[in-house]
């Protein structure tokens, strides 16, 4: 099959949540000489975008995103060694977790899936995590982005504790800090020291892209204005 045909079929396989076929096509793509990044962006991301857009439009389902995310994770286990072997540019890492006292994880899983599809290596440190766990993970994985999920409103102020811990560790300049959760606001985001908040997974991705492209200021720059 041609490169376009393989990537097209991979996109279809992701959309219909065919796990086996998706992984088979990832391997076939590598054998055909398609680069891992092309497989991620033109095959996997294309498929996940269809699912994500449908979910946003109310015509698609949450479990599709979660299952697609699992397919992404499985595919990345095949692709990451190839990226490292080829001496290619390592994927940027995102560390994501839910704050201490909170066990919610659905939104976090959706965001993780979407960021994997964007070519990130996503490290999910789990739920009910203290600030120290976020700091440790950022350092260990040299994360470029740290995402914090805070669904329970009374616990949202812990996002500031996390920010302060990242600052105290001397690594705040190295990461983009994004928070998310039901009824999160810009005012709360500024108060907690985060660079931005994601209204949903698509919004989170867009804001991170804009910050990395210099088109949206990080918090420090916003406050300096």
């Amino acid at each position, binding site marked *: 099959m041609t490169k376009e045909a393989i990537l097209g079929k991979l996109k279809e396989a992701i959309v219909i*949540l065919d*796990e086996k076929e998706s992984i088979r096509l990832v391997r076939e793509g590598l054998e055909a000489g398609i680069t891992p990044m092309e497989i991620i962006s033109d095959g996997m991301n294309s498929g996940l975008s269809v699912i994500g857009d449908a*979910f946003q*439009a*109310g*015509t*698609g*389902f*949450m*479990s*599709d995103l*979660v*299952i697609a995310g*699992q397919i992404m994770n499985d595919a990345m286990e095949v692709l990451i060694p190839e990226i490292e072997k080829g001496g290619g540019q390592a994927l940027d890492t995102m560390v994501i977790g839910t704050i201490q*006292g*909170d*066990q919610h*994880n*659905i939104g976090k*899983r959706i965001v993780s899936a979407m960021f994997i599809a964007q070519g990130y290596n996503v490290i999910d440190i*789990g*739920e*009910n995590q203290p600030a120290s766990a976020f700091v440790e993970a950022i350092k260990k994985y040299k994360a470029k982005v740290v995402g914090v999920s805070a669904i*329970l*409103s*009374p*616990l949202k102020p812990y996002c500031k504790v996390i920010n302060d811990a990242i600052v105290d560790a001397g690594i705040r300049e190295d990461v983009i800090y994004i928070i998310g959760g*039901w*009824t999160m*606001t810009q005012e709360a985001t500024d108060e907690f020291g985060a660079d931005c908040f994601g209204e949903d997974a698509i919004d989170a991705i867009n804001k991170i892209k804009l910050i990395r492209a210099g088109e949206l200021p990080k918090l420090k720059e916003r406050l300096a204005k």
Partner: protein
Amino acid sequence: MAKERFGLVNGPDWYNTPLDQLHFEWSPEEKLELERYCEKIHKNIAEDEMTPLERYWATINGKEKDRLFIITRALHSYASKTLDSNADAIKPMDIYNHPKLQVKEQLALTARFGFDWVGPYPVSYTEECWGGKATLGEYTHPQMLEGMHPVKTMADLEGIEVPDPKKDGLYPGYLWAYYEMKKILIEYDLYDKIVFYSSVSPDTVSVAWLGLMNMNDFMLATQRDPELAKGCVELADEWFIRFSQALKETGAHGIWCCYGPGIFRLEGNEWMADHYARTCRAVVDTDFPGYFGFGLPADLLWLDLLVEKGVMGPGGYSGWAASAEVDYKKLIDGARKYDLFTATAALPRQVMTGPISEFEEDIKQRCEYAKTHPKAAIGVYSIDFATPQHHVEAAVNACKKYGKY
């Protein structure tokens, strides 16, 4: 023995005590408190032409009424604030562990905001009741500890006992609160005036992935091992029917269930509708109606199948209410098509942040459309912890004002 089966960190001393052995006494001061809440509820009711109960039945049956019935839902994280002057001193954990506080909280809430009903939200989603171990956080339901869901394979389904809400976990306390509320409402001549509503949340499929398997494993199982997913839901069905029946016996005027078929794609998961039908039809009747509350736009895609299977409509639940994020016109048009009860609600984030004029306008638009369907209601629910009390008051008042016929 239940105590050996279930574990809950930070649970109450009476945990797993059967309902018929639970006794909590009211002090004279607490009795005065309850009396005053009831007096205030009477005053609120007197401001309208109809009683809330008359309005509720008129809505369920599609009859004339003075205004739209208002559905409200304040989780215990918000409801508890009515007891401590918004100090964030009393936590939801205290409400779950102390059923008397739940009674006071619910009556205080309805008294404060002029709600059309008294109706607590469940204290658990059964996480700790199937053999796993859970912890109660200050603001959370029992939440399963990592890796502690009891089901990962078909073999794990063997020997799992379905919990009994009259004996197991926090549920006896939850039921005690219902029986006590009914007693109080009768004593103060409110039982035939205010709506006394019960919640059996969550739905049977959600119980399967909250309490039996974890969400990720269950979702994958619907694809990779549907028989495993179905096995979990069959157990959950039994729980749902037992819990619904136990709530019906308390004397509540109806039942509602927080519900989410829209989490799952319709294709390949149609079997879930059979379980919804079985569990919903088991308990409701014309004197004890029920409805679902859902939050995802994709739930609307399930409407035709749910009606076809009898989940909603004659013999089943009366209809469903949606969160504000769901297109209210599509929601109400769908309910009209099948002659179902329905409700739309104010946007929680907007009610939280204001300005008041903005959410008043939104409520006005929703009310206008809701009034085109005689079985539609309006709602103020999913009230965020940070919502100022005067915003909740303004939202309820807007529902009353713009909901008038």
